[in-house]
């Protein structure tokens, strides 16, 4: 499926894009500005390859001032822009806008400062997630958010999507680890949100910016918080005969007052795929496995790890393996972290979803996902962050069969609807992007979305920053939502007014 969605603010006159390209080439240098269709094609999608749009211009930003110049020119000419890091996003957040500008930030990859005393690291947006931990390691510190793509994904992209990862159960998400950001606003102005101190007077605009999926501006410098490496880390791999037992074990661990660093779950099909791809040696015959990791002070980890062993045994775990060293731990994680790619080897194509449910409902929801899949006549592999109820159903299909991708998309949406019905969310870490924007109206009321739009309009009144993403229906900033119903007017008479 290829969707060409130019977005609401698509340029009406392509001539402006041509003017913009030539002016950018003069200002930034021709080598930083791509307009050759063959070169542009490289950038037509991000990690959500089923959505493709060829941009009008690609700017390979080499400095903050390149970003400022580009955004300022876009504002002047009314041309939309989209920022892109490593392009690993899974919701189409970095999909270009037709005739718009794609600002590629992957050349901005300097580590600007490492301050172990204050536990801060300042980076440019193109810096790769794992590099931050690499910088921190000599100081016994680490950057906690660890999306599965951490070897390639960029911090700027992490910031835009509020990226998660396996260890956010205990450590929180990107937003909990970003202290400050230098942001180029959609009018080209540069502002500093947050900083190196823990608090700042005024609105927490940084909190609103993180996870805004590129719709509020472009971060050009990011201050991250790092954490001390724990004294002890212990990891176990547990095999179960039923999904219900595995899900029950997750609830039991949480109910026991234990907060593991991670609890990850894979079902039979995901295990089969991972086994075929990376020979991770997961327990043979397991219908579900859990990877459980505890970290912290030695005494705490030792005692709680033993307690977890008892809890999984009580849920009929048939095999419990404990990593004896870092190598064995890495192998346990390898199966989990390579699961998405592994599924790609047992199916011609697959689609990944990212729903969230209350964590006590995992067993029930997995059962319902199985029923939905059977009804659709499709296979679904489940790989997910069980500790916080973040599902990643992988819907397998054969893209050579006409209509199959549409069918997979329908099944994915049915699963998301299930998550909403359970009081959950349509995305836990991948973002809404272009893929799920239509589902936003299922999770939020028009009033809720109008309120988010107020923030959008404060940052970007002309709607030039990553238009056509996140919001289900574009709205112009001039349109102030008035009283919504006639009933509203009737109500105005009643109230405190009588004391006057």
């Amino acid at each position, binding site marked *: 499926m290829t969707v060409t969605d130019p977005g609401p603010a698509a340029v009406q006159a392509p001539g402006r894009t041509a003017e913009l390209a030539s002016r950018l080439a003069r200002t930034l240098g021709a080598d930083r500005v791509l307009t050759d269709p063959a070169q542009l094609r490289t950038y037509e999608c991000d990690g959500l390859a089923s959505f493709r749009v060829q941009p009008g211009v690609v700017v390979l930003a080499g400095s903050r001032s390149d970003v400022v110049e580009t955004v300022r020119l876009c504002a002047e000419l009314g041309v939309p822009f989209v920022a892109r890091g490593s392009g690993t996003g899974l919701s189409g957040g970095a999909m270009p806008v037709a005739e718009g500008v794609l600002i590629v930030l992957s050349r901005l990859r300097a580590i600007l400062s490492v301050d172990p005393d204050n536990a801060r690291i300042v980076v440019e947006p193109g810096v790769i997630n794992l590099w931050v931990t690499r910088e921190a390691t000599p100081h016994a510190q680490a950057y906690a958010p660890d999306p599965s793509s951490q070897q390639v994904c960029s911090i700027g992209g992490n910031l835009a999507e509020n990226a*998660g990862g396996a260890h956010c159960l205990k450590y929180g*998400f990107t937003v909990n680890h970003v202290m400050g950001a230098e942001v180029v606003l959609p009018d080209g102005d540069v502002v500093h949100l947050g900083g190196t*101190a823990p608090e700042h007077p005024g*609105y927490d605009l940084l909190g609103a910016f993180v996870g805004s999926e590129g719709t509020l501006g472009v971060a050009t410098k990011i201050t991250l918080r790092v954490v001390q490496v724990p004294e002890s880390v212990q990891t176990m791999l547990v095999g179960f005969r039923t999904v219900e037992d595995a899900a029950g074990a997750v609830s039991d661990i949480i109910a026991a007052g234990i907060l593991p660093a991670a609890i990850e779950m894979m079902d039979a099909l995901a295990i089969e795929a991972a086994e075929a791809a990376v020979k991770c040696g997961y327990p043979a015959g397991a219908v579900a496995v859990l990877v459980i990791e505890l970290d912290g*002070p030695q005494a705490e980890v030792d005692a709680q790890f033993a307690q977890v062993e008892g809890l999984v045994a009580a849920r009929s775990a048939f095999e419990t393996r404990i990593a004896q060293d870092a190598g064995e731990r890495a192998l346990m994680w390898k199966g989990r972290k390579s699961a998405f790619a592994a599924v790609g080897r047992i199916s011609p194509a697959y689609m990944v979803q990212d729903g969230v449910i*209350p*964590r006590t409902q995992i067993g029930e929801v997995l059962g319902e996902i199985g029923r939905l899949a059977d009804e659709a006549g499709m296979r679904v592999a489940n790989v997910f962050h069980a500790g916080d109820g973040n599902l990643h159903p992988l819907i397998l299909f054969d893209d050579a069969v006409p209509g199959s991708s549409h069918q997979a998309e329908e099944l994915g949406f049915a699963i998301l609807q299930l998550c909403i019905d359970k009081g959950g969310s349509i995305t836990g870490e991948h973002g809404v992007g272009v893929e799920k924007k239509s589902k936003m109206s299922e999770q*939020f009321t028009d009033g809720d979305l109008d309120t*988010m739009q107020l923030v959008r309009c404060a940052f970007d009144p002309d709607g030039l920053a990553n238009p056509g993403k996140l919001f289900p229906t574009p709205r112009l900033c001039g349109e102030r939502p008035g009283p919504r119903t006639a009933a509203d007017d009737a109500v105005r008479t009643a109230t405190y007014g009588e004391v006057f």
Partner: protein
Amino acid sequence: MTTLTAARQGTAADAVGGVVPSVVAMPGSVDEVASVLRSAREQGHAVVPVGGRTKTGWAAPPARCDVALDLTGLSRVVEHTAGDLVVVAEAGVRLEALQEQLAGAGQMLALDPPEPGATLGGIVSANASGPRRLRYGTVRDLLIGVTVVLADGSVAHSGGKVVKNVAGYDLGKLYTGAHGTLGVVVQTTWRLHPLAPARGAVVVPVPDRAQAGRLAQLVSRSTLTPSAVELAWGSGQGQLVVLFESIPESVEAQSEAALALLGGGDRVEQVPGWFGRRPGGADDLVLRLAYEPFALPAVLEALGDAQVTASTGTGVAYAALPAQAGAAALPGLRAALAPYDGSAVVLHAPEAVRAGLDHWGPVGDAFPLMQRVKDRFDPERRLSPGRLLGGL
């Protein structure tokens, strides 16, 4: 739907920042809050939400206060799903009452602001936090969903009821610390934590500023996982408390490790009385400071003779100074904190020094953007006008 909201004439006891409201409205439901705000829009009235009234003296006084919106009638704990470690509660619920209910399930909301009697709405709006922010974070880390009533009386939600959720803008963070200037927080949803089975602390005397910084840093850079590291400081010396909350064997092992690391001190069952409280009395100027945590010695130096409690691991401190001298010293103090990205916000100022006092201090280059946010949410400037910096 037509609802009649209880209301009465405002009195001096209802004042917010010294400004007496004409009317105190006492809604009992979200619908009633909405209807009060619709009436206020109709009549052009300024509305200032209040809860436990523990922080009505904080921040700058409102420029106008026609209606004080007393939210203590919104006092329902709507839903506590213990298995999911999530609670939904209305804004007027007092933190102590909530903690008591959660404790029954062995859980807690990991917030410990130093103002007894505070309501959830007030804690969110003032971004109040306490010593344990070191381990659990602050409101922005724990609030997973919020419902507000906007200036036009419409009701809007953001976030949800699950701990992991990136759908849409996270407006809960925007309302946190906004002092009621963007909307009225009416319902909150929180991520909870299990209550620790054991608790213990190590107390160490601190002879001078340099040692305060050195000891604080030793703990920060260790593998210990204290819930709080708090310094009480005054007259050139202090006391450091390292609090552990975990299973008994870990509290034991970590306490012993802390004694060894810090080169002495005492193990105590109960933390000292000053722990988790703000210094200062009604006659003092009380400040809340934030700065890069490693700057602690420099911050203590800049504070001179002030009484201080500092959360050393995070870089947040409260300071109490004699009112006149403190007000005079404030610009210099802010300048001294600037190299450490520091700020000093006035929480409490006696009447005598309030005139002309800059409650918030310098504003960064994002201020025009903050004004644009305010303009979108409250174009008529009727929600707690002037409470936040720069007249927001």
